[in-house]
């Protein structure tokens, strides 16, 4: 018996029970779908993370008050950082190149009758160097702006659009915290980051922020860069020592601040991705097992239902290996059908999820042969028992089966 007629035979047998065939493949659909989503999400997340890291600026470090319990920093009851800390770091941490204070507050911005609630950040020109932020219109923040505490601001594109629509903003005066602030520049759009709009932001000189908005010398964070990639660890160590001294932490006591390295954040993100992958692998494995058992079950039912048919086939000259092949091919086609539906659904779901959480959608090329291979494997592994049962029937008994 030829392969093509075996396949056609299996197809017509499956088509006779369309609904049942489709339901049987559900486990395979979910299993293969999970494999595909896993691949797509994993690759998308990896691409996203390396994207974000390269966007953070080279050799960047950030010091924030708080302890490192859990994944984030707990800052309740811990002294904040102050301007003097910044000065100490600038003088004594020799592996540090640029250093910038960071302080922010959510405030309303107004232009004429338009207003927009956003986050106002106070920082120095160093910050823009560390983060490699580029102004697409107007000019950068200058040292002069910082020294004099000038009433100037740089807008993220979202704020510009909210206040000015499509009009030019540079040179205009907006009001923040009842202060007239001249717009000097518009930042390059950066899109969203983990679902947050990175362009919904305003920067003002640190001195302006400290004197006119917060009225004190407290900092939310200090951002700095190492002289080179090789000196990141040195810079981190120096900064830690300086801050421990400044904050009077005795030897043996835990830090009450954290110096974060984006590479560590990346590894946190990667471990989250890893956990997700393990979860999806589990779902995939269980679904494939359930799918395989479903196929085995329905094939066993089918063998019993078609006992007389098998008897007849044997009577007209089928060998037991013809029967074995027929049922194996049927099981494999069922599994493949489920696998292909799962592949399509998985790709669709991945692209939707990727869009929703704004990570790049990567078509997982490897998932396609994997889906095929896994389906065929499941079909064969779980088809063997029913197929053997069918092939071992005795012609006359099968023919007489009621």
């Amino acid at each position, binding site marked *: 018996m030829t392969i093509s*007629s075996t396949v056609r035979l299996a197809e017509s047998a499956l088509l006779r029970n369309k609904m049942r065939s489709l339901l049987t493949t559900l486990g395979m659909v979910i299993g293969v779908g999970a494999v595909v989503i896993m691949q797509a999400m994993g690759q998308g997340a990896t691409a996203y993370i390396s994207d974000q890291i390269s966007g953070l600026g080279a050799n960047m470090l950030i010091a924030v008050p708080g302890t490192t319990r859990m994944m984030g920093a707990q800052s309740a009851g811990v002294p904040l950082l102050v301007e003097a800390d910044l000065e100490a770091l600038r003088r004594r941490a020799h592996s540090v190149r640029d250093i910038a204070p960071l302080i922010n507050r959510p405030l309303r911005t107004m232009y004429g009758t338009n207003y927009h609630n956003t986050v106002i950040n106070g920082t120095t020109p160093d910050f823009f160097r560390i983060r490699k932020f580029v102004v697409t219109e107007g000019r950068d923040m200058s040292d002069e702006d910082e020294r004099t505490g000038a009433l100037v601001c740089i807008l993220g594109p979202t704020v510009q659009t909210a206040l000015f629509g499509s009009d030019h903003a540079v040179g205009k005066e907006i009001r923040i915290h009842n202060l007239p602030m001249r717009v000097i520049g518009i930042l390059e759009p950066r899109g969203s980051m983990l679902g947050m709009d990175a362009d919904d932001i305003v920067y003002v000189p640190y001195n302006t922020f400290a004197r006119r908005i917060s009225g004190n010398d407290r900092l939310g964070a200090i951002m700095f860069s190492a002289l080179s990639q090789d000196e990141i660890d040195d810079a981190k160590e120096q900064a830690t020592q300086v801050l421990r001294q400044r904050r009077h932490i005795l030897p043996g006591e835990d830090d009450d601040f954290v110096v974060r390295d984006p590479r560590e954040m990346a590894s946190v993100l990667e471990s989250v991705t890893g956990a997700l992958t393990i979860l999806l692998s589990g779902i995939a494995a269980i679904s494939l097992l359930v799918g395989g058992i479903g196929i085995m079950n329905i094939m066993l039912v089918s063998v019993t239902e078609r006992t007389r048919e098998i008897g007849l086939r044997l009577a*007209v*000259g089928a060998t037991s290996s013809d029967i074995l092949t027929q049922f194996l091919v049927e099981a494999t086609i069922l599994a493949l059908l489920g696998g292909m539906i799962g592949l399509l659904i998985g790709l669709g779901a991945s692209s939707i999820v990727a869009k929703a959480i704004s990570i790049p959608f990567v078509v997982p090329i490897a998932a396609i042969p994997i889906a095929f291979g896994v389906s065929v494997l499941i079909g064969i592994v779980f088809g063997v028992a029913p197929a053997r049962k069918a092939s071992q029937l005795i012609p006359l008994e099968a023919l007489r089966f009621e």
Partner: protein
Amino acid sequence: MLELRNITKIYGQQASAVRALDRITLGVNDGEFVAITGPSGSGKSTTLSIFGILETPTAGEYLIEGIPVQNLAKQVLALLRNNRFGFVFQTFNLLPRTSALENVMLPLIYAGVGTRERTARAKAALDSVGLPGRYDAHPNQLSGGQQQRVAIARAIVNNPSVILADEPTGNLDSKMGKEIMQLIQNLNRDRGITVLMVTHDASCAAYATREVSFLDGKIERDRSNA
């Protein structure tokens, strides 16, 4: 030439054992039309199944052209069922939801015949049993007599030398039964196909050239109908 020698067939074990055939010896020559008759349970169907290698005897020897069947490999047995014997059953045994043409093609699929030749031969077989133009009909769209014609077409499509029919008219009324009997008789007369036919019906047995009567697993009488 088909030959049963001292064939015994016992179903079941020990206490529940049934001796369906008891040391039967029976030879059938090429071109004969043999009717197998006898009361219910006398072993007729069992004998036919042994002839068609659908059943293995408990004891004794079955020879096809002088070759003992028990020595043959499973693949050879499948091949014999495929091209030497054609089966016709009382209940037709057509595949449901499958066209007449595809039903008739079945033996040719296992014979490895290509699609085009398969279709041509199956159509010719359906034409020869008086069912031209009903190629695409499914069994549930055909009368009993027509279904049995499809079954006969399937039995002859691979040019067997022997047709084994177990009460082929058992599920048909007398008019249709008569048509089927004439069809079988023609296969025997015109094509020289050996026919072994189990029947309860004396009028059917009358078509045969020889009648073998069974009683309690033994041959009670064997006579020519000439």
